[in-house]
């Protein structure tokens, strides 16, 4: 009951200021803006030929499970009789594999056999420094791993059966569109050598992650352009909501909650509460949890609202994005531990705000410096390099300080997994390094524990 009492009190305190109302109004405006987004699927008659032509040259070996991307030379795809029924798309697909020399298997059989195999040797190619894909452009590529044309024996190619071909094609639709459950059926019809006919049924194809959508703002009043549904949602969720939105939320939450502890330990206020039957350590920890509950509720409104509205507007419902709610709360827990420690020692909300934001800024700088250092290390041919001490400082800082930026990176990865197609994910993961959850969360947890322990010790042993 005491915990609930402190939580309610903290909530009441937070709701007392005008800042929270400004924040809620901004949140509502933002959610209104999201609600005004319109998603119009591009016509299947255009998308299917384009995608088949442009994207199906790439595949993921090991039946789609590989981390390396392979290429398919010599295969042509010709869709016909494309029909759309709601979000379902049906068409006939003619696949032409260039016939092999000297009686070897055609290119499509080879491609199917290669798709089944592990990637084998890989080549490292120089990659473009920029790209139009989201998240790919924020870090120049140093190298891009690609499977060398996977060697397929005559026997392996000859062993390819129609069910293997359909499985390969179904996997391609999953890899490039994010359509799980594509139904590819061989057509029982005599065809020339190297030519194959399939009937394809793509359920909920136009609502799939990789399907291009014409994006409009203000209920279609402003045309934004045509982007894959998953990419659009990824940009909105990762860059706008979890990037800019979360940053602003964190800063405002730091300011609002920075007053909680100083108000508690203020002369005249502390005596009243300490005289109640609640221990000091418990009181401080409950107050701390009260601050976390505040940001939890705030992020639940923002992230949950965005998720629901985006789901309603786009038909895309992936719950992984909701992990951003505990993630932001956890990030805030780190900052609020600093704020609590400073507040207990100084009794000053201003000092708590300045030092907490300063701490966050230092962590951000260290994270950025580490990313830059990693990039420069990966480009030995670059004309300019930092002095060795700069690398040491950025590496050491990143090792010993909480992984504030790592948590952000990990959340990006989770968001991407819920929105991007497997092939887009591959592009993303080869261009970025992702830390481990254990390190990122563990180190931050350790910092939180140490700072709270210091704050509790001080609060417990002080007079008044």
């Amino acid at each position: 009951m005491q915990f609930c009492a402190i939580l309610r009190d903290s909530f009441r305190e937070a709701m007392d200021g005008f800042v929270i109302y400004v924040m809620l109004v901004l949140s509502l405006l933002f959610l209104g803006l999201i609600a005004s987004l319109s998603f119009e699927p591009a016509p299947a008659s255009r998308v299917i030929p384009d995608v088949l032509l442009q994207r199906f040259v790439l595949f993921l070996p090991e039946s789609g499970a590989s981390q390396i991307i392979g290429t398919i030379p010599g295969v042509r795809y010709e869709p016909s009789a494309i029909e759309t029924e709601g979000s379902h798309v049906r068409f006939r697909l003619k696949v032409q594999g260039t016939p092999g020399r000297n009686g070897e298997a055609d290119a499509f059989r080879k491609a199917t056999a290669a798709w089944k195999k592990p990637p084998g040797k890989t080549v490292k190619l120089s990659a473009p420094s920029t790209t139009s894909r989201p998240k790919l452009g924020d870090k120049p590529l140093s190298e891009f791993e690609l499977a060398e044309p996977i060697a397929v024996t005559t026997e392996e190619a000859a062993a390819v059966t129609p069910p293997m071909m359909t499985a390969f094609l179904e996997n391609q639709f999953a890899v490039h569109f994010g359509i799980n459950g594509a139904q590819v059926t061989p057509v029982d019809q005599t065809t020339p050598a190297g030519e194959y006919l399939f009937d394809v049924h793509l359920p909920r194809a136009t609502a799939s992650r990789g399907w291009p959508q014409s994006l409009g703002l203000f209920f279609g009043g402003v045309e934004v352009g045509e982007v894959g549904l998953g990419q659009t949602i990824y940009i909105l969720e990762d860059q706008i909501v979890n990037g800019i939105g979360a940053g602003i939320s964190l800063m405002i939450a730091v300011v609002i909650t920075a007053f909680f502890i100083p108000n508690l330990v203020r002369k005249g206020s502390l005596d009243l509460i300490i005289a109640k039957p609640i221990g000091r350590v418990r009181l401080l920890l409950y107050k701390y949890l009260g601050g976390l509950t505040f940001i939890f509720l705030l992020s639940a409104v923002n992230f949950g609202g965005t998720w629901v509205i985006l789901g309603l507007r786009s038909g895309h419902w992936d719950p992984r994005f909701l992990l951003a709610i505990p993630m932001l709360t956890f990030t805030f827990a780190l900052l609020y531990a600093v704020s609590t420690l400073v507040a207990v020692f100084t009794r000053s909300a201003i000092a708590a705000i300045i030092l907490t934001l300063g701490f966050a800024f230092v962590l951000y700088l260290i994270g950025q410096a580490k990313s830059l250092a990693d990039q420069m290390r990966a480009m030995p041919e670059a004309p300019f390099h930092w002095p060795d001490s700069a690398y040491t400082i950025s590496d050491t800082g990143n090792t010993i300080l909480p992984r504030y930026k790592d948590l952000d990176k990990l959340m990006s990865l989770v968001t991407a997994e819920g929105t991007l197609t497997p092939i887009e994910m591959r592009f993303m993961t080869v261009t970025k390094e992702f830390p481990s959850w254990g390190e990122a969360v563990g180190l931050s947890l350790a910092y939180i524990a140490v700072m709270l322990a210091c704050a509790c010790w001080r609060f417990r042993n002080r007079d008044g």
Partner: protein
Amino acid sequence: MPVVSTSNLCKNYGRIAALRGVSVTVEAGTIYGLLGQNGAGKSTLVKILLGIVKKSNGEANLLGAPAGTTAIRNRVGYLPEDHLFPGYHSARSLLDFYGRLYGLSRAERRGRADEALDVVGLRKRMDSKIRTYSKGMKQRLGIAQAFFHNPDVIFLDEPTDGVDPVGRKEIRDLLQRLKSEGCTIFVNSHLLGEVELISDRVAILNQGQIVREGTVADLTRQTNRYTIRLADGQAFPTEDVRALGFPVTAHNPFHDVEIPEGKTIDPVLHLLQRERLSLRHLVETKQTLEDVFVQMVESGEPGTDRRQGKTAPLPTAKRAE
């Protein structure tokens, strides 16, 4: 078992000794007044008992448990001096919050809060934000939050501070009522008249030490002094009275006659009768608590200039203006 007992209690703030060997005992169902100047150590004593401040030395027990025991605070009410209630609460929501900390049920919280606020005269404003309250209203709220959970003992630090005379009377009546219901009340105050009116026992704390302790009657005992006035135009036989062995002090038209140990006023009255003098005023003088207090604490409050109980004269230039 005493509600409060301290023995040789000491508290040092750095090099400053706030309490120097304080020993007090407060019995259940009484009102105990602790008098002292600002900075004498009154608040420190209470804060040690409640665990707000840590003692440096000595013993302190509250309701049979060592001072500062968290669970015991369920049975304690406290109104600190210079209290600061969170302005975002209303009186009702504040008592609801405190009631939750005391572990009261929803029905108990609601019932007792309404009743307590009614008793202190805040019922009509109990849903207004505390930041809109006057100082007196905040003081009334402070008293309500100190007793609404039916504690066994209440510590009140300057309870009538900022309260108008009518309000003070109401508070005094309330304290008497609480006492009659078995509650023990510990009052810290420098308003001597207030304490004198309600306290069963009184202690005077001076510079961290108890200098007098006892019932109000003990402390304001008779001084064996009579004030006499004769009819207009009659001269008081000062020398004759002195000749009888009674010291006399004149402050016209009255004369104070001191009664030496073992004597009574009767010889003086016989003398006046013999001289055919007409008596118009004869009162046995008693000490007030203020007299006792000023006698015991003849110095400026700690941290201020020592003035021996006198006010420094105003600057001449100002008076001339």
